[in-house]
């Protein structure tokens, strides 16, 4: 008897996944644990291992198909086994006859993949009255939400998703079809789920917020010395980086600046977090990912360092739990290693601020004795949402952060 392999549920909040590519083809012998196909959520990608042994008899969904979690994806069994009972309604089947009788037509029309990201006809997005009302109250653009309602309608839960997790913002409805051109001129590459999510999130961020950036620098002598000191230590302590120290300092400094450790809820309210859940921007082969260090304010420097490394590794390997890719209350993005002297980080909505870490350059200053001295200055670029925070308090945060970093050992002692 043939058995089905289902689309795994890759996290509590994940409702469907896109098949990346099939590693096995129909007719292949499969053992339990063999990788059948890769799949991705809008945040991460995974490999699906076979839970059955036998021959891959039928594949119900193809590369790029979006499949609801827990739905049958393929059938494995002995040659000749009947797989019709395993085939989900609406799945493409190689051997399924095309519906011929007109009676069949409405039945086929009934079937559609649930929770499909569909948009209403003619590019006009339908929004339920309740969703519209909620979006107005929350100050978000409901039409940017991913519709999961019937007929591509944006319903309440879609707006809530948009508010809670702006990474999952909807794609722009219609895309212009390119005129036919010779294939050698260029290649059209379809965005991966992650790329699409980044694209939407960044666009929403810049189009819905009042963002501006302040730049400053601090004397990095202390942290560079401390870094040297740690390098000679045993074990995890030796792995602590300048970035980790900045994360540590941010986690402490934010406690005095609750408006920057917050989510904008709507035009009239803000959610202030009691703990610092620090988003850390990680560069991965699939694109930018931002895992969260929950309760960073309660962690020691070495704990932060370890957590950062683990999360970054999981992101790069693509096996991070999607639940760890959300919930941040403030984000740090470090481009110092690329020699960037100053930049404008883009806020991860609905957060109210993001810190960019720049490279260290030598600067001169007047020493107390009147002479000119050279010191290492590390740049900091804070982007904040002016709807939530004014310029002076934002500057005060940046100033305090700089002081804490310049006197890092004092901060550690607290």
């Amino acid at each position, binding site marked *: 008897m043939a058995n089905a392999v289902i689309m795994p549920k890759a996290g509590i909040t994940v409702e469907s996944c896109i098949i990346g590519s099939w590693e096995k083809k129909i007719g292949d012998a499969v053992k339990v644990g063999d990788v059948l196909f890769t799949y991705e959520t809008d945040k991460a990608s995974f490999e699906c291992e076979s839970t059955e042994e036998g021959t891959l008899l039928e594949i119900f969904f193809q590369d790029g198909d979006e499949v609801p979690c827990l*739905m049958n994806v393929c059938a494995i069994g002995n040659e000749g086994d009947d797989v019709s009972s395993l085939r989900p309604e609406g799945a493409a089947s190689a051997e399924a006859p095309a519906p011929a009788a007109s009676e069949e037509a409405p039945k086929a029309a*009934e079937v559609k993949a649930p929770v499909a990201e569909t948009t209403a006809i003619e590019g006009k997005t339908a929004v339920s009255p309740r969703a519209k009302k909620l979006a107005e109250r929350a100050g978000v653009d409901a039409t940017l939400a991913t519709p999961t*309602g019937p007929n591509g309608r944006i319903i309440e839960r879609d707006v809530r998703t948009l508010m809670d997790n702006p990474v999952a913002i909807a794609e722009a409805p219609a895309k212009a079809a390119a005129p036919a051109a010779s294939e050698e001129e260029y290649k059209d590459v379809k965005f991966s789920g992650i790329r699409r999510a980044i694209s939407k999130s960044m666009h929403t961020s810049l189009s819905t917020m009042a963002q501006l950036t302040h730049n400053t620098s601090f004397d990095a002598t202390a942290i560079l010395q401390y870094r040297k000191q740690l390098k000679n230590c045993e074990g995890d302590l030796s792995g602590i980086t300048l970035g980790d120290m900045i994360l540590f300092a941010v986690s402490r400094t934010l406690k005095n600046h609750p408006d920057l450790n917050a989510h904008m809820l709507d035009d009239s309210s803000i959610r202030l977090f009691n703990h610092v859940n620090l988003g850390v921007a990680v560069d991965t082969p699939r694109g930018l990912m931002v895992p969260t260090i929950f309760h960073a304010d309660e962690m020691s420097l070495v704990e932060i360092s370890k957590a950062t490394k683990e999360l970054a590794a999981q992101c790069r390997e693509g096996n991070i739990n999607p639940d760890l890719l959300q919930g941040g209350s403030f984000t740090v993005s470090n481009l110092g290693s690329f020699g960037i002297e100053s930049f404008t980080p883009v806020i991860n909505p609905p957060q109210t601020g993001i810190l960019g870490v720049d490279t260290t350059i030598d600067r001169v200053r007047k020493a107390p004795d009147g002479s000119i001295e050279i010191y290492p200055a590390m740049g900091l670029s804070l982007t904040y949402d002016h709807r939530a925070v004014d310029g002076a308090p934002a500057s005060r945060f940046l100033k305090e952060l700089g002081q804490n970093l310049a006197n890092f050992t004092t901060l550690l002692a607290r």
Partner: protein
Amino acid sequence: MPKNLFVSPEEVLAPGKVTFKDIPVNQYNKTIKEELKSGKYTKEDLIRIFRDMTVLREFETMLNLIKTQGSYNGIDHTYPGPAHLSTGQEAACVGQAYLLDENDFAFGSHRSHSEILAKALSTINKMTDEQLMDVMENFLEGKCLRSTEKLGECKDVKELAIRFILYGTLSEIFARETGFHMGMGGSMHAFFLPFGIYPNNAIVGGSGTISTGAALFKKVNNKKGIVVCNVGDAAMARGPVWEALNFAAMDQYKTLWESHNDGMPILYNIFNNSYGMGDQTRGETMGQDRMSRIASGVSPTQFHAETVDGYNPLAVIDAMERKLELLRNGQGPVMLETVTYRYSGHSVSDQNAYRTKEEIDAWKEVDPLLTYPAKLIEAGVMTQEEVDAILKETSERMTMICKAAADPEISPYCDFKKDPAVVERLMFSNQVVEKFDDREPEVTVPKEEAEGYKKIKSKTRNVIDENGKPVSKMKMYNLRDALSEVIYDRFYEDPTLIAYGEDCRDWGGAFAVYRGMMDAFPHCRLFNSPLAEGSIVGTAVGYALSGGRAIVELMYADFIGCAGDEIFNQMSKWQSMSAGILKMPVVLRVSVGSKYGAQHSQDWTALCAHIPGLKVCFPATPWEAKGLMESALKGTDPVVFFESQRIYDVGEQFHEGGVPEERYEIEIGDVNKVCDGKDITILTVGATLYRAMDAAKELSEKYGLEADVINLHSLVPLKYEKIVESVRKTGRVILCSDACARGSFLNDIAQKITELCFDDLDAPAVVVGARNWITPPFEFDEFFFPQASWILDAIHEKVLPLPGYMAQNGCTEAEALRRAAQGV
């Protein structure tokens, strides 16, 4: 199916023949002089008979002129309503009314101005001045009397009463607030209870069953007087009239009833004017030569029927005298065919295309308004001058009345602009009446000794016992027990309460709600009716409007169609058409079947909810059933009480602590929230509650969604507050009932929710009903009636797609459009 009536094959299969007695036809042949000599009438009586006939004639003449020329004796008035005139039928009406008094109830036909006025004039003559003043002062707080007094000085109270009755009737016809029923009844529904004048009816033969119910009321409650049921000849072709004749003739009154076992005190009088509208009954649309023949097909007594010359008032009085004696001796029912003729058309638009001028002229030659006074003059009872004086007095009085009734100063219309709720307030009486009479209820055993009642009381009133263990079916107080308990209680409180319907007694009702009651209550309070739904509901209407309380059962809701007129036109409308003077404390139990296919499984709540004037409820739990039945059986309004055969056996699963031992009422109009949730509202009607609970369980267990489940045990009236509160909270609503989805009352509720909660809705309100088919055999129940999976499908497809869920039952838009286009 009483056991003591042995159906003997020897007797039933024995040879023999059916015989009939002769039916007398127009046998009266006395002269005026003979009558005077016998001392039966004084000269004044004979003259008053003439006077009364002139009053009736002038009334119809006046209306005819107002309708056709817009003017009568210089009074200009436009009256747009109906005028089914009885010009020519005066002698028949005056003759009938002559011996009747205020204790005798006369129900009217389709053409009944003359019937009403004749009964009034006769009653006025018999009542004392004090009684008359009392009646007039107390009727509608003297409003009619005050207007009548504006007509000027009056020689005596009787004249005042004549003016009063003419004015009250005409202003009712002219739709004035000063009419007997604020103008809400009009020409076709004019009556005056204090004189024993009961409703006439715009439905041909409508009085057949209603008057029979009034006679049942008199019989069961020992009330004085008899009942006259007036119908026209054309009405004798109608089924409900035949049902009424049979109901009145039932053998059980004599063979089974322990008390009140006289015959039914009712006279069926057929005013035979030979025409329906334009159809001629004799010779064309019926097969009867004489209408008096009909009763021979109903009972061996032949209802003591005879045909009487309705063109001679004294012949009619003579026949009435004999019929009344039979009735007073308990030998009813009786029947009279009173032959008459109408000169006027059916209505004023009648072109008389169906009869010749010669025919009308031939009848006019024997017009009682000419022949009767001629006989009186000939006999020396009165002179031509006296005749002329009466005609003059009648004409002057009518002119005065018409002027007043047409005058908006004296006779204003109800002001709908100032008081838009004027009719609204009349739709229901909304009273609580413990009992309609103070006497001791007639019972066979005291309540505490009634075995059936004791058995109910001994049951566990919850689905789990005090140890948390499930209660066995046999020991569990169920929905059936809840209904039964209240009916028992009310039987012991309201002596007028009677219950009947198909197999209510020995069988205990088809679904055992009356089980055991035959041992507690005599036949006069609980009996088997004929399998004739028109008569079941129609008699209950008559019983209730006469002053009693009735609970009747139709066994299957599908039989509502058989009692369509009685439910939709009579039970529903009389409270408001009478401007609240009549009450309608009728509970009509109907059961929604299962397992019995297309004609025994329908939920017709929508039909009843559509008709203004009916309260409609449908309990789905024992707690609801008990509280609603208590309200229904204490109220004064007609309630169609739906029950589902699927759930008579359910125990109380929702109400904390089970069903209380003590009495309580649930307001008809309230709703019952059985399950709290924040994600989706499910509204249910009837047995679908239990399938909705299954769906709610799956929503919770598989999808983490919590449903707010509200059972709509009442449909009319319906308070929306709790529904709106729930939908505002959840933003999503599914409505579910076993009624066919098209035209289901749920659509009405869904539409109202959409209006009230539009901005809070996350999806349209979705109705899940049965398919628009016949009900297929029980084996295919799940394909026809809503199932839990249908509810989930509807949620998934139309409201809130459920992750990983696959719809199975095809409820997409395309499918809905296809079905609508096909009419299925």
